[in-house]
C-alpha cells in the first residue's frame, strides 16, 4: 500500500471544520492530490455535533488542551431529571448536539453553492419559524411575545397600536422592496450608507420613523444583533433586517431561514468531506500537523513542496497547507485577536410546542424558534447585550421526541454570561412550559471567533501556507465564509481557477439517475 509519505501531495487540509470542508468540496473535482487530516477523532472541528458521551469527551479535551481549540471553559451539568417517564435523559446516542446550530437565511449564498455543487440532496433542510421576545412585566410575570416578522404578521398583531404599526410599515417600506424574487441579500448599498450614517439602531428608528421604543428590541432580534439596540449600528441592523424580509417565502410560505437536520454545520462539513473522499481525497482522523518545515530553498518554484511532519510520525510533502490557526502547530500559530462569547447547550424535558406554531397554511412545520432576551428583561441595564436562545425541536433529529435542545448565546463571556443564559433558560421554561419541565443536561462553554464579518480573507503566511480566519460567531450563517473558501480555492488552483467553475459540478455517474 502506498504510504502517505510516497504521495506528492498538492494540498494538505488540516481540520475538518466548516471552512475546510467546504474547501474540500470545492477541490473535490479538481484532480488535485488532497490529504485531509484532523487531529480530533471526529469530523466537524468547531462545527462538530456530538452525542452526550462525545460531548463529555469534547469538554475534557477543551479543558485539558488549553489554547488548541477555539473554545474554553467547557463544563457539563446533569439535570434533575426524575425517573418519571418522559422526564429523564435518553441514551447518549439519542442526541446530536451541535456546536454550530446557526440558522441559514434563504438568501444566503451557501444554499446556491450547495445546490450547484450537487450535494444539497444529501442534506435535509427544515424551517426556522417564529421569533419570540421575552418581556418582563411589573411584578413577577414573564411572557414571550411573538415578533411580527413579516408584513402579514404586523397587520395581524394585536399588541401593537395602529399608530405604531404605521411607523413600522413606513420603516419597512423605506428600507426597500422585500418581495420574494427581488435580490436584497446583504444589500447594503451606498444609498444605505448615506441614509443611516453613523447612527445607532435606536437613534435611526426614533429620529427617522418615530418607531416607538417598545418595538426596537423586536426589530433588533430580527437582525440577531448580539449588542443592545443602542450599541448596534443602524447600518448593520438595516442590512440584516432587509435580509430577513427578503428571505421570507423563498422556499415556502411562512419562513425565511433554515436549519440543517442532524446537527447543523456538522452535517454540511461532512457532506463536503464525503464529496472530496469520492473525488479521491484521503482522510485521516486523529492526526494533525506536528511541525512545518519550510522548503530549504526559499525561492518557491511551481514544483517545490513544503515538508511537514504529521502527529502520526509520517513526513510528507505538499505544495499547499490550509488550516485554521488552531490546526497548525502551536509555535507556528499567529496570535489570535478573537472575540469571545458565552454559549450553552441545554436539553429540556418538554417539546415546548407553543414555540413552534404553524406560521402559514400549508407551510412546513417549523423545527426551530429564536427567543431573544433583551438585557433589560433579565434585570440588566438597558445597554447590556441580549441573550439569544435558538430552540430546536426533536424534529431536527438532535434529541428524542418530547424534548427540546436550547442553544444559548450571549456576547459576554465567562461566568457572567453563563449566569445570564441560565436566567434566560429559566424564564423561557417558565413562560413556554409548565412548572414541571426539567433541565435534563447542559453544556456551557466559551467560544472564540469573529464577532464582525470583516478581515475574513485567508492569510498566506508564509507563502503557500493558507491560514483561514477564525470562525464567525454570528447566529446566522455568515456568507463571508463562502468568499474565504473561494479565495483559498483560487490560491490553490492558480491559473486553473475559473470563477464560474467554483463549486459548480455535474451529478456523478450513478448518483440520482432516474
Amino acid at each position, binding site marked *: *500500500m*502506498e504510504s*502517505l509519505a510516497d504521495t506528492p501531495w498538492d494540498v494538505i487540509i488540516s481540520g475538518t471544520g466548516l471552512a475546510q470542508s467546504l474547501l474540500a468540496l470545492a477541490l473535490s473535482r479538481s484532480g488535485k492530490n488532497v490529504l485531509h487530516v484532523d487531529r480530533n477523532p*471526529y*469530523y466537524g472541528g468547531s462545527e462538530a455535533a456530538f452525542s452526550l458521551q462525545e460531548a463529555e469527551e469534547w469538554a475534557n479535551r477543551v479543558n485539558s488542551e488549553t489554547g488548541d481549540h477555539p473554545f474554553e471553559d467547557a463544563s457539563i451539568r446533569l439535570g434533575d431529571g426524575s425517573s418519571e417517564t418522559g422526564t429523564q435523559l435518553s*441514551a447518549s*446516542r*439519542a442526541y446530536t448536539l451541535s456546536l454550530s446550530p446557526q440558522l441559514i437565511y434563504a438568501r444566503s449564498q451557501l*444554499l446556491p453553492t*450547495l*445546490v450547484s455543487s450537487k450535494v*444539497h*440532496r*444529501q442534506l*435535509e*433542510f*427544515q*424551517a426556522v419559524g417564529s421569533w419570540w421576545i421575552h418581556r418582563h412585566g411589573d411584578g413577577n410575570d414573564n411572557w414571550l411575545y411573538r415578533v411580527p416578522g413579516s408584513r402579514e404578521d404586523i397587520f395581524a398583531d394585536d399588541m401593537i397600536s395602529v399608530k405604531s404599526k404605521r411607523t413600522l410599515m413606513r420603516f419597512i417600506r423605506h428600507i426597500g422592496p422585500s418581495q420574494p424574487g427581488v435580490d436584497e441579500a446583504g444589500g447594503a448599498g451606498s444609498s444605505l450608507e448615506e441614509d443611516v450614517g453613523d447612527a445607532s439602531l435606536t437613534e435611526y428608528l426614533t429620529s427617522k420613523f418615530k418607531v416607538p421604543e417598545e418595538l426596537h428590541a423586536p426589530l433588533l432580534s430580527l437582525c440577531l444583533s448580539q449588542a443592545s439596540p443602542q450599541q448596534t449600528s443602524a447600518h448593520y441592523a438595516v442590512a440584516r433586517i432587509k435580509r430577513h424580509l427578503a428571505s421570507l417565502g*423563498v*422556499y*415556502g410560505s411562512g*419562513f425565511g431561514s*433554515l436549519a440543517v*437536520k*442532524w446537527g447543523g454545520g456538522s452535517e454540511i462539513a*461532512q457532506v463536503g*468531506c*464525503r464529496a*472530496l*473522499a*469520492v*473525488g*479521491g*481525497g*484521503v*482522510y*485521516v*482522523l*486523529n492526526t494533525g500537523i506536528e511541525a512545518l518545515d519550510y522548503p530549504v530553498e526559499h525561492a518557491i518554484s511551481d514544483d517545490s513542496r513544503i515538508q511537514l511532519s504529521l502527529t502520526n510520525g509520517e513526513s510528507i510533502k505538499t505544495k499547499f497547507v490550509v488550516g485554521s490557526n488552531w490546526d497548525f502547530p502551536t509555535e507556528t500559530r499567529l496570535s489570535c485577536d478573537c472575540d469571545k462569547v458565552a454559549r450553552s447547550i441545554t436539553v429540556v424535558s418538554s417539546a415546548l410546542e407553543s414555540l413552534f406554531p404553524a406560521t402559514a*397554511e*400549508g*407551510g*412546513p*412545520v*417549523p*423545527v426551530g424558534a429564536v427567543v431573544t432576551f433583551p438585557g433589560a428583561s433579565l434585570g440588566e441595564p438597558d445597554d447590556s447585550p441580549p441573550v439569544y436562545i435558538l430552540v430546536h*425541536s426533536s*424534529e431536527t*433529529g438532535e434529541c428524542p421526541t418530547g424534548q427540546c435542545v436550547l442553544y444559548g448565546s450571549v456576547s459576554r463571556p465567562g461566568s457572567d454570561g453563563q449566569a445570564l443564559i441560565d436566567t434566560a433558560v429559566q424564564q423561557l421554561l417558565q413562560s413556554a412550559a409548565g412548572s414541571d419541565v426539567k433541565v435534563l443536561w447542559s453544556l456551557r462553554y466559551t467560544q472564540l471567533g469573529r464577532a464582525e464579518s470583516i478581515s475574513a480573507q485567508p492569510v498566506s503566511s508564509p507563502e503557500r501556507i493558507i491560514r483561514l480566519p477564525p470562525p464567525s460567531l454570528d447566529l446566522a450563517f455568515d456568507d463571508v465564509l463562502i468568499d474565504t473558501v473561494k479565495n483559498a480555492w483560487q490560491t490553490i488552483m492558480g491559473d486553473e481557477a475559473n470563477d464560474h467553475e467554483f463549486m459548480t459540478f455535474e451529478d*456523478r455517474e*450513478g*448518483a*440520482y*439517475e*432516474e
Partner: protein
Amino acid sequence: MSESTSANTAKPSSSVKLVLLGEAAVGKSSLVLRFVNNDFQENKEPTIGAAFLTQKCSLPTRTIKFEIWDTAGQERFASLAPMYYRNAQAALVVYDVTKPSSLTKAKHWVAELQRQASPGIVIALVGNKLDLTNDANEAAGEAQAEGEHESSPAEGDEATEESQEEQDASSGDARKVPTREASAYAEEEGLLFFETSAKTGVNVVDVFTAIANAIPESSLKSGRGAGAGTGQTSLSGGRPAEDSRVNLGERGAATAKEGCAC
C-alpha cells in the same frame, strides 16, 4: 403515512441511507454495481475513498430509494467510515466466503456500528463470492436469510464443519467460511444474513429487498432522508402540510425529481 400529492404514483417513497463496509477486495463495489446496473466487472479497480450511487427498490406498499455509500476497504481509508455510517439507516457489512480474515474484519465493523452508529441501524452481514463455492448454483433463490437457515446442531461443532469443509476443498470448493459459522454469528448479533455472488447475481437484490423490509416504519417517517416524513420542510411546494422538509433543488419549479414521491 402521508399520502403522496403526485397523481402519477400512489406509493409513498422514502430515502434510506445505506453504507457498505468490509475488508478490501471482498466485492463491496461489485455488489453495488450488480444491484444498481445489473453488471459485473472482473478485476475491478479498488475503490478510492468512497462512491455514491442511488437505486430504487419497490415494495408492495412503498418505494425505497437507497442512497448508497460505498466505502474503500483499504486500511488507509478507515477514517472515512464514521462519516458514512453516521445517521445511516442501514449498513451492509461484507466479507469474502473464501477468506476467513475478512469475516473477522466484518465482525469488527459490526461492533463499531453497534457502538457508534444510530441505535436503530439495520445491519446485514453478507458473504460474497458464492460463485467460488460448490453452492454457487443451488443457492439461487434460496436466501440464507435470518431465520431461514436450517437449525444447526450443538454449538461449537467445529469438527463437523471442518470435515465438511475438507470435503468441499477436495472437490474444488474455495469456501473457507462455513455458512453455519457466519449465520450463527449473525443470529447472535441480530443481523440479516445472506450469501451472495456479485458475479452471478445470486441473492444480490434479495439483500437490498430484505433491508428495505427491515427498516422500521418509524425510521422512515422521522429518520434521515425520509422523503415523506413529518417534521421535514419541502421547498418544492408539493408536499403534505405536516411535512417539514425544505427542498432546495426545486426552488420555483417543482421538477418532481428528487425527494418526493415520483
